[in-house]
């Protein structure tokens, strides 16, 4: 049964696996966006989210916990001074994975993993959407709403 067997083994010994994720995580902190296989990205997300969670509160205990995975003083500093504060208002989901496609050579599924920083434009749009949604709901009560976006998409496809 698959009960309590979360995670993958990556055909590696425990030590090799941990070392691999240390390297991946340190590269992620360094470049804030890296490209690996889907499986490794998914495994890295588990660790990266935990580490960022710790990095949100700056104290000695957390620095020591994080240093199990981040074996580099500069990167720890970056983690606690730059990355942690950026996620002060976010509770979980600090990383984002995009699937890119299949790698040439071994046809491995490749994806991009990055820190899910919220851009200002985005938040503004979200707020606009929320406001629009509220309006729409109010309108729906009285009459059917036509969705212009969908119509244009379909038209585009037909034209092609």
């Amino acid at each position, binding site marked *: 049964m698959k009960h309590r067997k979360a995670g993958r083994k990556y055909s590696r010994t425990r030590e090799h696996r941990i070392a691999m994720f240390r390297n991946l995580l340190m590269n992620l902190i360094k470049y804030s966006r890296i490209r690996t296989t889907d499986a490794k990205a998914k495994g890295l997300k588990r660790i990266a989210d935990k580490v960022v969670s710790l990095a949100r509160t700056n104290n000695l205990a957390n620095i020591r916990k994080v240093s199990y995975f981040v074996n580099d003083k500069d990167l720890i500093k970056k983690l606690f001074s730059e990355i942690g504060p950026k996620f002060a208002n976010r509770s979980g989901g600090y990383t984002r994975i*995009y*699937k*890119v*496609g299949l790698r040439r050579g071994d046809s491995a599924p490749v994806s*991009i993993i990055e820190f899910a920083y919220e851009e200002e434009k985005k938040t503004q749009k979200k707020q606009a959407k929320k406001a629009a949604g509220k309006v729409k709901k109010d309108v729906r009560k009285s009459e059917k709403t036509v969705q212009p976006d969908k119509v244009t*998409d379909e038209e*585009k*496809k037909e034209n*092609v």
Partner: protein
Amino acid sequence: MAVPKRRKSKSKRDMRRSQWKLSSVNVITCPNCMEPMLPHHICPGCGYYKGRQIIEKEEE
């Protein structure tokens, strides 16, 4: 030990194997550039994903 009494006929063997099938890959058109792309992936043509979000490698 329990053991098969009769050899399975060709028909039975082939009926069993009739379920061995490949499923086709679902290819969609990118809503941004109309190139073919895989669902839930970044478009290989224009690097767009989920509408306006532009991700990676801007192709000229």
